[in-house]
């Protein structure tokens, strides 16, 4: 399945860049537009260009060296030592040391971002050229976890601006556009483009218009618009499934009963969401991990069982339940309406929260991004996104798929998290962009992209 996806993605790439002729050229301004905030966690596009992590995630799941060149676990994965790459400098010229790394990671843990779980270690400190992590429970997949942008290494320069060791540095923000300039001394090599300009909070239709008139080079294609992009002959790069559409159920009040939560979970019609709202993009799922990562996702049935849902509800008629969506896009609102319809069919009295309402509803539709490419790290990451930590139950067996399945089953059996669809990310690319690849989590790798005709 995964290989088929990769082959499909590669075929798209092949078609897209068939006109490439020579090695990439340096120079030029790469213009990208997004609906979101370029600094948002975990997938802000600017964050990845400015900051580096200790490791990176290979497509095959394992961690690769980045700011750390090697690592070693001790004491049954309770203690980890990461050796820091020599000769790396922040964009303000200050050298990267084990102490600055430890300070940056301590700062991350002291101020967790919304939707992020606790850090998987108890202490982190610099010792010579290495950074030592100590945890109360074994963390066998710490190298994979440290590849997440949540754990990117940042510090503030003398002016208070955030600096990192990545290929670009922030140079300004004006009129809704963030400007980033190349970092000539980047340890991983100077990027090809001189400047990246990120226009933020731009509606998709405006992005597509800008692409068509040559004012943008890379724009977003939501999964539900992939067919439309195809019809408009846009050159599109599509990722593997990286966003989980999920219904969360707060176990409070009437929903404190597991049977009632199970009833709600059985009432949802994933196939309708897939066919109608998301235009048959992505994959229907009952699992927290994509099938291609775990190989066992099919064991979690995504089928609707309305009769069983009604039976489990048992004729109870509670007061009204609120169903909300975490983001305010029209697609998420439509999906929320569709879910409300499903739940009403099972006898639930559901009201849809107004778009933009900040109030947390008992039932929430969320879109959760996945960065990890290894099954174990992916489960850790997903649980972290739901405010849970898997660390306490870790067996240390690492890649044992059956043990991982049992852990995931234990989480899903609680019926507070109802996975619905795994969705890809996609980007439309202008003619002058060369060699753009998507990172394993579906974000464009702008540091390796170049521009046709740049000198």
């Amino acid at each position: 399945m995964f290989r088929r996806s990769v082959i499909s993605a590669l075929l798209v790439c092949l078609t897209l860049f068939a006109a490439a002729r020579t090695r990439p050229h340096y120079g030029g301004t790469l213009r990208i537009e997004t609906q979101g905030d370029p600094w948002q966690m975990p997938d802000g596009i600017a964050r990845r260009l400015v900051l580096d992590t200790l490791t990176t995630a290979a497509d095959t799941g394992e961690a690769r060296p980045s700011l750390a060149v090697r690592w070693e676990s001790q004491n049954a994965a309770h203690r980890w030592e990461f050796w820091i790459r020599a000769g790396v400098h922040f964009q303000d010229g200050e050298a990267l040391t084990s102490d600055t790394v430890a300070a940056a990671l301590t700062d991350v843990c002291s101020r967790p971002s919304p939707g992020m779980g606790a850090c998987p270690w108890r202490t982190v400190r610099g010792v010579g050229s290495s950074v030592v992590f100590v945890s109360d429970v074994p963390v066998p997949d710490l190298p994979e976890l440290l590849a997440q942008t949540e754990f990117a290494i940042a510090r503030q320069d003398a002016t208070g601006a955030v600096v990192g060791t990545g290929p670009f540095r922030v140079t300004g923000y004006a009129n809704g556009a963030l400007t980033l300039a190349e970092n000539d001394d980047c340890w991983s090599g100077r990027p090809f483009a001189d400047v990246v300009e990120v226009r933020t909070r731009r509606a998709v239709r405006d992005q597509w218009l800008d692409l068509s008139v040559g004012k943008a080079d890379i724009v977003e294609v939501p999964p539900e618009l992939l067919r439309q992009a195809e019809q408009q002959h846009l050159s599109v790069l599509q990722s593997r499934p990286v966003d989980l559409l999920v219904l969360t159920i707060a176990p409070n009040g009437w929903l404190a009963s597991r049977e009632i939560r199970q009833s709600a979970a059985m009432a949802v019609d994933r196939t309708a969401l897939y066919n109608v709202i998301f235009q048959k993009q992505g994959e229907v799922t009952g699992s927290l991990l994509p099938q291609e990562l775990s190989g066992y996702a099919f064991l979690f049935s995504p089928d609707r069982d309305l009769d069983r849902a009604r039976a489990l509800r048992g004729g109870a008629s509670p007061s009204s339940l609120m169903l909300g969506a975490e983001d305010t896009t029209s697609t998420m609102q439509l999906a929320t309406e569709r879910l409300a319809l499903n739940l009403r069919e099972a006898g639930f009295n559901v009201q849809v929260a107004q778009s933009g309402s900040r109030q947390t509803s008992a039932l929430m539709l969320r879109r959760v991004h996945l960065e990890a490419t290894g099954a174990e790290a992916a489960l850790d990451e997903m649980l972290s996104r739901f405010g849970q930590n898997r660390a306490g139950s870790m067996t240390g067996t690492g890649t044992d798929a059956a043990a991982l399945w049992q852990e995931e089953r234990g989480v899903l059996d609680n019926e507070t998290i109802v996975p619905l669809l795994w969705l890809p990310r996609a980007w439309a690319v202008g003619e002058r962009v060369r060699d753009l690849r998507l990172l394993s989590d579906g974000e464009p790798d702008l540091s390796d992209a170049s521009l046709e005709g740049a000198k």
Partner: protein
Amino acid sequence: MKSARYNPPQRMMDKRCLAVALLLVFLFPTARAANWEQPAGELAKQIAALAGPGPVRLTIRNDSSLAASEIPAIRRLLERDLRGFGVVTGGSESATLIRITLSENLQGGLWVAEVVEGTETRVTMLPVSLGSTVSPAGGGPSLTLRRTLMITEIDPVLDAQIFSAGNVQRLVVLEPEQIVTYTRSAVGTSFVEEAGWVEDQRFAITHTRPFPRDIRGELVAAQDHLFDAYLPGAMCSGTNTGAQVAVVCGDSDDPWPVGLTQRAFYNSMRDSFTGVLAPGFGMEIAPFYQASDIPRPTGAGMLLNTVDGRVMLIENSTLKPVSGANDWGSDFAVVRSECGSGVQVLVSGSGAATAADSLRAYEIVGREAIAVSAPLSVDGAVTAVHAASGGTGATVIVRKDAPPRYEVWNVSALCN
């Protein structure tokens, strides 16, 4: 357009190809089927531990990249092995259902067995190696490109060359941060060793300036020592010290050799040659990616591809554009063979940097590049082409993405 003339294809060659094809067709499935013995036995054991002896119903679903034609063989093995544990399949009335899914994840195959008894379902899983597949060989109408895999590396490879000192042959592999040497071995167990090369020594490449993103490098045989390695802003020298090699590296802006007599200055920040040659030809040359001597009827010439995508020929102190090179990528090597004019240019395709690529041989007739082989399809991206030591072949580096790895090939031309 002129066409090069070669001997017509020989029937014997066709028969040999047919024989090889038949061998692959008949032997390969057998080899793959044999691979399932062990996992089928292991999964049967796990299932038997859950289900216990007795009649069962068995279903098998393939949700992996395995060919459908392989499933019957796997089913037969599973049924046989289950029988060995007293679990008899085919009991259509049995209350026990064994549902096997041949699945797949990033690490490879994952065989999942669900033992369903009433409302209870127990699950067991087994990771399985799916093995590798055979790539189709390429061929051409008049000249055939033959490729031989030398080694496969996880880390990026910039160049690889074989150097001889006395009776010892060494494969030297240039990577961005290290040089790895291999020596020949008669017998091996790993993939690298199967090709006859066993890792010998590793040397870190010291440099103070960061390397460019699309780093290039080149290994060149030296006159008074074993080899020189050129990298952007750095240079290493390898010396044979009896049974071992010693390597010394340091920062360097020395020009890189691009022919017997010419050297070219390298722009480390742009990863291309500046266009300045020493001693030069007395003319201005645009920045270029690669240059090589090429024998011409009038004497020696130099072929180069400029950063703006043109292929140029320096001949008789004049710079001329070469036509027919629109499909050329950025990498080429001039190789000698027994075919045609005896000199061909092996060129990478102009395809994607991320997907399938190709190699093709050309001859430069006058000022025209004429294809003399069919494209040799490359399952991956060609990241470098260098003339191999001796000049009769080329070292080709191919990046593959799933799983990520770099293959080093020796490519040579065979006359048809």
